[in-house]
């Protein structure tokens, strides 16, 4: 079980999610967009969707082990 590629990939993905969802990356996107509203929601939702799609890709592919 240890060192299986799926396991390592999931841990990596979790770390990526943490980086994307936490300051300071988060602070970069807390700025007004063209309408004057903050674009933070657009960023969080997009990052979230990317993480979900990556997770689907990692979890649905055949484990080489």
């Amino acid at each position: 079980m240890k060192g299986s590629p799926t396991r390592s990939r999931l841990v990596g993905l979790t770390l990526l999610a943490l980086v994307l969802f936490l300051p300071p990356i988060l602070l970069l996107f807390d700025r007004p967009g063209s309408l004057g509203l903050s674009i933070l929601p657009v960023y969080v939702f997009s990052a979230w969707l990317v993480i979900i799609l990556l997770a689907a890709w990692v979890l649905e592919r055949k484990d080489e082990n």
Partner: protein
Amino acid sequence: MRTEWVSLAVGFSYLGILFLIAAWGDKRSIQGRSIINSPLVYALSIAVYCTAWTFYGSVGRAAETGLSFLLVYLGPTLAMLLGWFMIRKMIRISRAQKITSIADFISARYGKSTRLGVLVTLIAVIGVMPYIALQLKAITISHALLTGYPLEPTQALATKAFLFDKSFWVAIVLAVFIILFGTRHLDASERHEGMVAAIAFESIVKLLAFLAAGIFVVFWLYQGPMDLFEQAASRTDLVGTLGLDAVPGGAVGWVGTLILSTLAFITLPRQFQVLVIENVDERHVKRAGWIFPLYLFAINIMVIPIALAGLLMGDGSPDDYVLTLPLAAGLDALPLFVFIGGLSAATGMVIVETIALSTMVSNHLVMPVLLRWKWLHLDPALNLSGWLLGIRRVAILLILLLGYLYHALIGESYTLVTTGLVSFAAASQFAPALLLGLYWRGGNAKGTAAGLVGGFIVWGYTLLLPGFALSGWLDSSLINQGPWGIAWLKPYALFGLEGWDIYAHALFWSLLVNIGLLVGVSLFSRQSNLEQTQAALFTEALRPDVMQTPLWLGQTTKGELYQLANRYLGKVATLKIFTQLGSTESPSAADDTPASPTLIAHTEKALTGALGSASARVLINSVVRGEALDIEAVLSILDTTSQALEYNKRLEQKSTELAQIGEELRGANVRLRELDKLKDEFVAMVSHELRTPLTSIRAFAEILRDSPEVSPEQKSHFLDVIVKESERLSRLIEEILDLARLESGRMRLDLKPVNLSELAKDSADAITQLYDDRQVALKLLLPAEEAWVKADPDRLQQVVINLLDNASKFTSPEDARVVMTISSKTNRWLLAVEDNGTGIVTEERDKVFEKFHQIQQHKDASGSRPKGSGLGLPISRGIITHHQGLLYAEAGQVLKGARFVIELPTIQP
């Protein structure tokens, strides 16, 4: 259409449908054709996470505190990413140990401790109470809005005697429904497949209802999302709503809520129930790992538009926008659908939560007390399996009534989301015991108990107590000035930690105390043997060999076990235990044959499934005599298992290596035998070859000696033969010597630049006489330029002459012709000798280079004398190989006979 009766009828019909789905699910489960055996259903059942709090509260939170509502869903996304090994581990442990709840799990992990079971149950009941209250509140308010809009809902809810309070009746209806729905089985240890099916259905309903409301807002009230956002942006007071500044506590609050929701997602009793206990197949965790986050994504995508639209409308409580927006537009059907969606979100949560809590209460609060009353043991006729269900039903009713009380007394002072987060923080107190317990063997029951109590007290002080103060139960000076005016004890700013949002603040202090006590006390106190065993079993759960060890070595009779099981589990379940182990005779109380350790272990597991691990152990101890549990043995097994595994692995490696070497040896042996055979054959051939000329020499010499009357012509003929045969003999010996030199690598070559064309001409000259004798025409096709190669000229000439000699022997009898050509190929010179004979078939082309091949062939064919010794070609090939060249046979190109080619590397002269 929105009358009291219509809404009641719709609401009850919805509950009826749930009931039917649950009944269907249970029926299919009994038939063995489970409808919940799919990762999709599993993911939808986990979505019980989205309660009325999500359905109504997210919009409220988005309207008031911006994006912070999303954190409650990002956390579970993180948890599900790690679920494939973390949640799966919990599932595997729970299956092996028949765990029934999170209280059971923690109690079992720390040595099946009764005390921990009680503690976790109490914390869960107290901590989750606000959450249940919240659902009751949501149902009541949404119903009031549906029937009374545009009446102010608080008006409708104004303080009334409880008999006229709708929340009270909602609680009663739900209690009855859940009792009918969740505790119908006699065998209380089974999973609730019907419930899970109904919950999955509810998840679909609430998602559709929420999306419908969102689509209505965006595309009906406004002309698409851009229109909505433009209008929101034009309002100066709304511009800041979506930024990080709106989030309470800013960046710290953001991180705190994210951690809080990640932990609570696993430790909330109902989440543990659907994630771990109700899981059918651990492989489902994999796909649910992305389907569930996708569900969360979908149910949140419309939150911000609805919140903005609500703010633009500017009417009513933000918690109600989902319902008030369609109501204000004067619609009839949509509000009803939204109400059903909210109802499904609330009922789903209440159903699973109360079932999980009632199991905990009956197994960890009530049963331990009952088991300590001696009279229960003394009356064997009393069947307790019925009691279990009774206890659970009463527990469900009490939990809902407590929820109602909380709602009636303090519920008004909090918004929906605030209440939910209070419960989250309480549930998070289980996280250290649960997660550390999965990976760290050192934690023990004392440390865990200390950590839980400490964390719970801090939680109560920093979140629950100030809540009471806010609702007016306590003096609000507690919050502003601290108790007795001590400023550093202010509940929202403990030890002067100011400026944090209250949840991050409470989470930090409570987890600090919790983990600190757990680790600290564990490090300075001892584990009992049973604790060590359980710790090892839990932390090593993903290792396949761990769970199978039967633990019981004590003695008891089958009859006693039968009585015990029968009393607590009922007849059907007991029969199942005994027949599972292949016993053919029907068990009876009078059976006094000794029970096997496996049977004792099975009975304990079955009892654990119904009563929790701590109680089951007490019961088994009451009938098993002798040292019941040989923990030392088990421990040593577990500790040595990893070593043994390591040894095993190495042994396996060694044995594969050995097998490989053996295989190689066998191959080498076969080759050696072949070589040996070849050597014998070779010696036989050589002797034969040498004997033939010797015999004729001897024969003719004898004739000459014994017959003086032989004529001089005959004499000279005989002498000719003797000379020829001697020459043949010496040539043969020379060849054999060459061969020996070649094979042993002792052949010395005098390498120098040689012009191949020159050499070819010389060879042709040398053999002219022979060709003339045999009447063979030789033709040379040589290139204009000089063909320089590095070679020993004598040896190379020997090879060419040998080839020419051979060719002349195999030409066509009439019109015998041989062609020798020299041509160049990338960095190589090719000398080819070709005859116009019959050629050599493809599969024979390599065999002609074997020693004595020709002889064998001829022997096979006609038995006539061979035309050569059969050593020429092998020697030639050996010589050419020593020149770093190639000698091979191929199909003729010019004369269509046999063609032999020498390839040698080109050099500069």
